């Protein structure tokens, strides 16, 4: 049995909703098939008040082993570094987080808020929110860049807004079943198995990307969402078009631009007016190129692709 504790800081519960929708494996499978003992979870835990505090104290004192500590949401430091804006079980949540991370074998940050700060950390960041080990791209966060769990690993970051249900349960299972050593993490401590390829990998609109045919409005059944609607699929690391949402779809398949929510800078441009769902350009050329492509190459590629594009690229690809 592996003891798992799940707590929430500055969170909307989106990752909890996602977790409860998991299918491969499901949240129930974690308990019945993989021997995970969910000690407490904000939406599932039975203990209240003193009973919960007693359990938390047993964990922080080492009386009860904590194998996996899952955290959802930001670590809230306001006001003035005290954390009093986010109190839980009699004290600031940030203090529980610090103490629990000292005794946990593994720490898993779920969702963009817990990993990099996410939406709550957007300037001016009134809640003084940080992720567990990052604030955006900067290492540090609540625990510090040098933090290692008792098993010797940094925080395992599973970003996303929310993280996909199966990314959550599959990582938890890997850790709970002694396969954490098989997890290789990238520079932002994301499991490479999920976060090496791009959102664009497997996108059904890739032919429109190749032939430079743009979608100009939401929900169009043709066109690439990168050129005009701000899609970040070509430069966002995620398997959203490989491990589909609800087993059947993704944002881009539905005609909605990828917002880059698995990257540390999410939400991009601090949600300034005119930056959401609009490709940012300088003199008509995108500011953010697909990863690995430079401006000169991009312009040459565009000219060639437009000239060679077939007629069908301008027609609807999904016909009702």
């Amino acid at each position: 049995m592996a003891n798992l504790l799940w707590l929430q800081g500055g969170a909307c519960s989106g990752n909890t909703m996602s977790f409860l929708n998991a299918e491969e494996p499901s949240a129930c499978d974690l308990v019945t098939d993989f021997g995970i003992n969910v000690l407490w979870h904000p939406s599932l835990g039975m203990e209240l008040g003193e009973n919960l505090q007693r359990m938390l104290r047993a964990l922080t004192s080492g009386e009860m082993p904590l194998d996996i500590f899952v955290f959802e949401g930001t670590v809230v430091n306001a006001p003035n570094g005290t954390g009093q804006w986010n109190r839980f079980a009699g004290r600031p949540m940030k203090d529980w987080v610090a103490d629990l991370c000292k005794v946990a074998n593994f720490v898993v940050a779920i969702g963009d808020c817990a990993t990099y700060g996410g939406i709550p950390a957007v300037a001016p960041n009134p809640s003084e929110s940080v992720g567990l080990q990052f604030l955006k791209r900067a290492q540090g966060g609540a625990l510090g860049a040098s933090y290692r769990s008792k098993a010797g690993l940094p925080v395992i970051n599973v970003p996303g807004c929310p993280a996909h249900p199966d990314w959550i349960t599959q990582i938890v299972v890997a850790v709970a079943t002694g396969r954490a050593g098989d997890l290789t993490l990238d520079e932002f401590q994301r499991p490479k198995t999920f976060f090496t390829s791009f959102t664009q990998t497997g996108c059904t609109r890739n032919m429109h990307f190749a032939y430079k045919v743009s979608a100009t409005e939401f929900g169009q059944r043709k066109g690439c969402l990168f050129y005009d609607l701000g899609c970040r699929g070509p430069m966002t690391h995620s398997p959203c078009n490989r491990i589909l949402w609800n087993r059947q779809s993704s944002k881009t398949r539905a005609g909605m631009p990828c917002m880059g929510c698995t990257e540390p800078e999410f939400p991009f441009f601090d949600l300034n007016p005119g930056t959401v769902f609009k490709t940012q350009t300088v003199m008509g050329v995108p500011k953010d190129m697909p990863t690995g492509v430079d401006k000169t190459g991009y312009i040459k590629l565009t000219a060639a692709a437009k000239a060679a594009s077939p007629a069908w690229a301008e027609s609807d690809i999904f016909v009702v």
Partner: protein
Amino acid sequence: MTAGETQELLKTIADMLGKGLRTVTEPFPETDKEFADILAQLRDLEVDDLEGKLVVSGFVDHPFGPDQQRCMECMYYLVHRRWCDLPELAVPVEPDWWCRLWRI
């Protein structure tokens, strides 16, 4: 719009530009805010105000600027339909034309 109507509209636009219609080619919208401002001006026009569309968007009937930018490479240009797919414009265009809403 039928193919015939599209062709007729294309000829109308070509005639207007050929007769020296003065359009607002400068300033080129360097930022997205400037780009959005031009789109807002276009939305304020009457639906059938073709000349207004051409003037506000800065249409010319030749490649433009030191980089010889043209509709052909613009993201909004549909090659086979010879059509500008920017919703605020939605007009037939020739590949060697240009307007200041050019994006790549």
